[in-house]
């Protein structure tokens, strides 16, 4: 868009005058483009940092990953903010306050959900006092997954938001981001008791171990055990997933 050709002239003499000012030639264009440029490069952040994601957010605002170079100044007031970065777990008591602060922000405004807790509640999703994701309260434009996401990932989320603003200013359809799947976020890659691709001996030993514990968590002594069932000493090899049991060979 920058007019670098000096021989080019405009019908409007004001534009020719503008072109003579060094550096102002980039401003000549449609007013939409000017607004686009100004909006996407001055995303002032209102930090809704409630927990440890806020620390990573501070790191993103500090010297090494400097989001200030994108024009994203961090403001402590919702009235001067464009982007609300929800960084942290939002509780049931906090959610109405978040909504109130979101309503105080002037249009245009965007919301960036940073971290697993803000996206879906993650570990705390099933706890009585935590809401399952900030997108149940305010509309979220960009999801930045991670626990917590590192500063570079937050910066990448801000750049995705810039792309979204560009597309919206051009009148194009910007596909809405979807919440990352919960299973992929929190479920670790371990086999659980009863899984088919897990060593059956390991499962049985684990179940025996669990059954031998009393209600108070202490292991029962043999005269305490009503069923007379005792944990047999066995040799375990966790890595073996083939059909034959490793303890069968040692018995013979």
């Amino acid at each position: 868009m920058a007019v670098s050709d000096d021989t080019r002239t405009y019908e409007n003499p004001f534009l020719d005058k503008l072109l003579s000012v060094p550096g102002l030639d980039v401003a000549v264009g449609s007013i939409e483009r000017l607004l686009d440029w100004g909006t996407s490069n001055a995303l002032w952040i209102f930090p809704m940092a409630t927990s440890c994601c806020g620390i990573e957010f501070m790191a993103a605002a500090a010297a090494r990953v400097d989001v200030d170079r994108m024009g994203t100044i961090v403001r402590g007031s919702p009235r001067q903010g464009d982007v609300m970065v929800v960084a942290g777990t939002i509780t049931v008591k906090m959610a109405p306050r978040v909504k109130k602060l979101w309503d105080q922000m002037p249009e245009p405004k965007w919301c960036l959900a940073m971290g697993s807790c803000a996206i879906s509640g993650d570990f705390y999703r099933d706890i009585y006092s935590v809401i399952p994701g900030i997108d149940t309260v305010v509309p979220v434009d960009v999801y930045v997954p991670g626990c917590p996401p590192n500063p570079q990932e937050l910066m990448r989320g801000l750049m995705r938001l810039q792309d979204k603003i560009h597309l919206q200013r051009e009148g194009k359809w910007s596909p809405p981001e979807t919440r990352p799947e919960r299973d992929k976020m929190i479920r670790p890659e371990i086999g659980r008791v009863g899984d088919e691709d897990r060593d059956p001996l390991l499962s049985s030993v684990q179940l025996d171990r669990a059954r031998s514990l009393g209600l108070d968590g202490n292991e029962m002594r043999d005269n305490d055990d009503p069923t007379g069932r005792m944990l047999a000493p066995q040799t375990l090899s966790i890595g073996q997933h083939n059909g034959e049991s490793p303890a069968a060979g040692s018995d013979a």
Partner: protein
Amino acid sequence: MNEAIAPLLGIDVADVSDFGMTVPADKHFALATLLKTSGYGLYVSVIATHFTEQKKSRKVPEPVPEHFQVATVLRKPVKGAALSFSWKVKLDVGQPIDSLVSLFAGADWQEREQYDLVGVTFANHPDLRRLMMPDDWEGHPLRRDYAIDTPHHPWR
């Protein structure tokens, strides 16, 4: 020290163990006053615990009714060390315990927290409201019989 304090409050020394002593609820305030006058001026914490009813079984020789236990910790700062003193109060369901706000101003929010999460009532507390949960919350979340999936509009 427990053995020294117990006769002052009329408690049998046999009830005192190494893990602190259990004080009747009506002696709670008197003990705190006595400790404060003897230098234990730092109110550290109050910990309320809920115990559900336990029937008689092989592990439980005597049936235990549902009750609460309130442990209070005071501290005496001395040079180079800090002496702590703690005692417990066993409460029945619905039985209030004396508030220590008139002795220690720092007990205000801590007792409100215990009231909020466990549901222990503190008598003579100046402002006994919920501290952490919303004001319209139903139930006390740190009770042992509190269901973790208790519905709360509009999230679950």
